[in-house]
């Protein structure tokens, strides 16, 4: 059997790049939040220091098997999501494992991390974790519906479920799907606000209210794994949205610019908004984003 070295290189380097970019974006978020609040803010690599510190914690606690496996599930889901998204267009190294039907596969695997976390948090027996998990899964049901609507509209419009085919369609910037199918983009970006978990949809981890929710009993290395997973997952989602709506990127500079602009939408929204309760956020997701999703499908079908 012939060994495909470029795929192996992609497997090794994609998570590392995703981690570095995700952590830097996380640090940047904290700096931007601080500047908005008229503070100086932490250094840009603060999140990296936090993660190193969490990994260097010495003692750990044991609540059972699922508590150890929960963060592992989360990071598995993040890295798997990343592997099925073509990071750089037409690159031999960074296209990864994109295949026919990967949009449907991504819809499933993106939920897997949250479910793994829910299992892990449930094992710890902390009441705050249980509240956080129930809130998180309710909200998941809320934003998945408009997101699926948007993706289905795109699948019908271009008769494909392959990300590489979608990238091939958007060969010129006038043909980006954001312009070809704006209602699908609206529905998806509103669902994206919920996916990223910044305010107003941060009721899941509300630190002052339910003591950071699902991870409230996790410290040290488990929390480090979760933050790593979150950084990688952020990058994976941003690249997915760039691929679907913004025509992908043929080099890293373009990728960074496009993902950064996309990333600023939830961050800047999060800075100025207070927090929705769970039922309010579900009501929101099932009103305007769902409406836009239905409009997108109707426009495509008729």
């Amino acid at each position, binding site marked *: 059997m012939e060994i495909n070295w470029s795929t192996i290189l992609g497997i090794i380097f994609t998570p590392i790049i995703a981690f570095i970019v995700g952590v830097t974006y996380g640090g940047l978020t904290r700096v931007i939040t*601080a500047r908005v609040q008229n503070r100086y803010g*932490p250094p840009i690599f603060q999140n990296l220091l936090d993660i190193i510190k969490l990994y260097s914690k010495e003692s750990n606690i044991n609540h059972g098997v699922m508590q150890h496996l929960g963060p592992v599930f989360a990071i598995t889901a993040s890295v798997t999501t990343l592997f099925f998204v073509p990071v750089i267009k037409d690159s031999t190294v960074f296209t990864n494992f994109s295949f026919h039907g990967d949009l449907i596969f991504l819809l499933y695997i993106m939920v897997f991390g949250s479910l793994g976390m829910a299992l892990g948090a449930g094992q710890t027996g902390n009441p705050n974790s249980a509240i956080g998990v129930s809130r998180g899964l309710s909200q998941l049901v809320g934003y998945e519906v408009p997101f699926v609507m948007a993706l289905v509209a795109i699948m019908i419009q271009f008769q494909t479920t392959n990300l590489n085919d979608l990238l091939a369609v958007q060969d010129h910037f006038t043909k980006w799907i954001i312009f070809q199918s704006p209602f699908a983009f609206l529905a998806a970006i509103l669902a994206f606000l919920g996916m990223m978990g910044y305010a107003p949809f941060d009721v899941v981890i509300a630190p002052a209210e339910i003591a950071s929710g699902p991870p409230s*009993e996790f410290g040290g290395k488990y929390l480090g794994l979760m933050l790593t997973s979150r950084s990688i997952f952020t990058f994976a989602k941003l690249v997915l949205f760039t691929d679907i709506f913004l025509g992908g990127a043929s080099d890293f500079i373009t990728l960074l610019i496009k993902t950064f602009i996309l990333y600023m939408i939830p961050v800047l929204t999060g800075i100025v908004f207070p927090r929705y309760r769970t039922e309010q956020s579900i009501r929101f997701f099932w009103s305007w984003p769902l409406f836009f999703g239905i409009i997108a499908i109707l426009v495509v079908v008729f």
Partner: protein
Amino acid sequence: MYNDKEASKIVDIIKNFARKHSLWIVAYGTGCGAIELPPTMTSRYDAERFGIRGSATPRQADVLLITGYLSVKTLKRVIRTYEQMQEPKYVIGFGSCTINGGMYWDSYNTIKALDRYLPVDVYINGCMPRPEAVISGFIKLQELIAQGKADGAKRYQENLEWYRENQRKVIKNWRMPEYNW
């Protein structure tokens, strides 16, 4: 050829650097000192510059900040909070009350010297210490961490019996879970 000691020294330097610049505090704010924490964390003094951040639960925290006097009743909760934190962990005694009882020195219901019950790494004196003093206390703790001298958790483990004896002396209804760490 491959010097193991040097390698572990480099790892220690990296670890201590990260620990020093990322202090997540759980503030035990039953004393009056808690009122000084909001100005320390918000835009006027902005403690996040130094990587100091509030944490939601004791499991995630590094620094236990005892802000002011401790009554016997709250001491019990503080001990449980401290034992739930994960190593390496540090304690900062905040205000005169944690040093010698302060204005509560002759109270029947508060402890006088925190160091008899929990291992304190840094004291910040004053009644109340202003945010500048709080930040300078944190920077002192950072220096100690960088030099590897902030070993309160180790002292607590080594002298556990002595600490337990002192704790049992003041806490009359001792119903605490036995830990096996």
